[in-house]
């Protein structure tokens, strides 16, 4: 997958766990020597570190050398309540009674990825990774607030800094979650690439864990007919994921 600059990639999953895509992009961009800001709201740092080591990256070292800025949501959410209120905490919205906005989180991202000019090792394009956005809705943020946060991140990361963004949103599919649907559709309209991990319609299978639909949007040049969508099936292994065309799993051939 070529890393073009200034692109928003949307990851979504339905009836399955798409977090393997998050781990992939994290290790991909770290290995590509990019500066990564990871807003990790779902799992702890050590979880991502353990999986990252299987994929060949050491998150602890990346953080120490300044390549990785890691916002550990689970840990720092507690700081919101016990930290002195000098400046707004990125997760300040957790304290607020009314659904506010995510401007403090945006300021955190912007600060984390702004280029430093003091002679340090120059990283390649900055990358923002968010796992995941659906949890912000569960924590009480309105869908417009989340869309605004992503909008401002796009301005700062994709447009100003020519970096990339990768965000994960869960698709509720059966459950009628209107706000999540608006979030998913709103982000889809803003995305250049949509990777959708779906569970198989026939249920769980040991050898085929799911199906990945790839949809390219917003081509820079409008063309009449173009292959804009591909579907692969996949199996997650210990240190990698193998992809194959539908029905072509080695287990069934």
């Amino acid at each position, binding site marked *: 997958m070529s890393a073009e600059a200034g692109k928003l990639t949307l990851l979504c999953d339905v009836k399955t766990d798409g977090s393997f895509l998050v781990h992939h992009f994290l290790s991909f961009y770290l290995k590509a020597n990019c500066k990564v800001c990871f807003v990790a709201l779902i799992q702890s740092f050590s979880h991502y570190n353990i999986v990252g080591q299987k994929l060949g990256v050491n998150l602890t070292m990346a953080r120490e050398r300044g390549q990785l800025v890691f916002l550990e949501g689970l840990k720092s959410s507690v700081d919101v309540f016990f930290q002195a209120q000098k400046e707004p905490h990125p997760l300040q919205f957790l304290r607020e009674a009314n659904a506010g*906005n995510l*401007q403090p989180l*945006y300021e955190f991202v912007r600060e984390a990825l702004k280029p430093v000019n003091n002679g340090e090792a120059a990283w390649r394009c900055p990358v923002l990774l968010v796992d995941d956005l659906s949890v912000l809705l569960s924590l009480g943020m309105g869908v*417009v607030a989340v*869309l*605004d946060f992503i*909008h*401002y991140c796009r*301005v700062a990361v994709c*447009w100003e800094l020519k970096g990339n963004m990768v965000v994960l949103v869960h698709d509720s599919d059966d459950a009628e979650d*209107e706000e999540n*649907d*608006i979030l998913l*559709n*709103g982000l*889809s*309209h*803003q995305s250049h690439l*949509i990777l959708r991990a779906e569970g198989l319609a026939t249920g769980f299978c040991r050898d085929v864990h799911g199906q990945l639909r790839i*949809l390219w*949007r*917003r081509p*820079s*040049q*409008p*063309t*009449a*007919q173009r292959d804009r969508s591909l579907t692969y099936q996949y199996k997650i292994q210990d240190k990698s994921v193998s992809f194959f065309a539908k029905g072509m799993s080695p287990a069934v051939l």
Partner: protein
Amino acid sequence: MLDLLAVGGLVLLRDSVEWEGRSLLKALIKKSALCGEQVHILSCEVSEEEFREGFDSDVNNRLVYYDLFRDPLNWSKTGEAFPGGPLGALRAICKRTDSGPVTIALDSLSWLLLHLPCTMLCQTLHALSRQDVCPGDSSPVRQVRVLGLLHEELHGPGPMAALSSLAQTEVTLSCTMGQASAHIHCQRPRQRPTHQTQLFSILPDFSLDLQEGPPPESQPHLDPHTPPVDPMAHLTFNLRLSNKEREAKDSLTLPFQFSSEKQQALLHPGPGQTTSHIFYEPDAYDDLDQEDPDDDLDI
């Protein structure tokens, strides 16, 4: 489709994730600009560079660009934000003083609808698309066309219906027979609404290429070579009754239907009534035990 540019008022371009509408919006903008009109663009979703990409300089020079992408909510506090935010930008377009036909492109109406109350947006759109825009304005009547890009999946039926009622034309983008198509619904005052489906493609320089129309909307997938199969042919049972058969069926008394005649017959069995008899001839091996086998049951 070219009629869209001839009629004024609000034109809704309804797109979806699958079929994006910005290319068509840009194609219509290009056409307007090349016709000599001034084009005002309120851009909320993409950067100015990205929006202008693909236009050549004579189109770009006619574009008046209002940038709501960089800082729509004034978070940066650097003074770069558009004064008054989205509503301020819309009002600035309302107050423009140029004369002659004008096209206003809103990219996108969805963004505005998510950030402004629906009623306020509808009132502003109504003011924008009327020909005599500002009260007290003494300039001659202008042809104003408002192109609004709307992402269908983001809004409920209420706001969508409100915008539809304001619009003179609605263009819904989808796919017909593998080709991008636009379903155009035109509602002009004092005229009957018209529907039309137009296949089109957009060339790399955002010129609009209209293709010959598809068959009418109903049954897009009917194959003309296979005759429709009649499911009523070659049945092994009768689906219809003749009149005589229907009469006979209606006059039939069902065996377990309790009518007054049956009641009388049961209460007063007449001499002519047939009663049923059981004829039993025991075999040589039959054991006729007169004892009642249920005798030992203590009920």
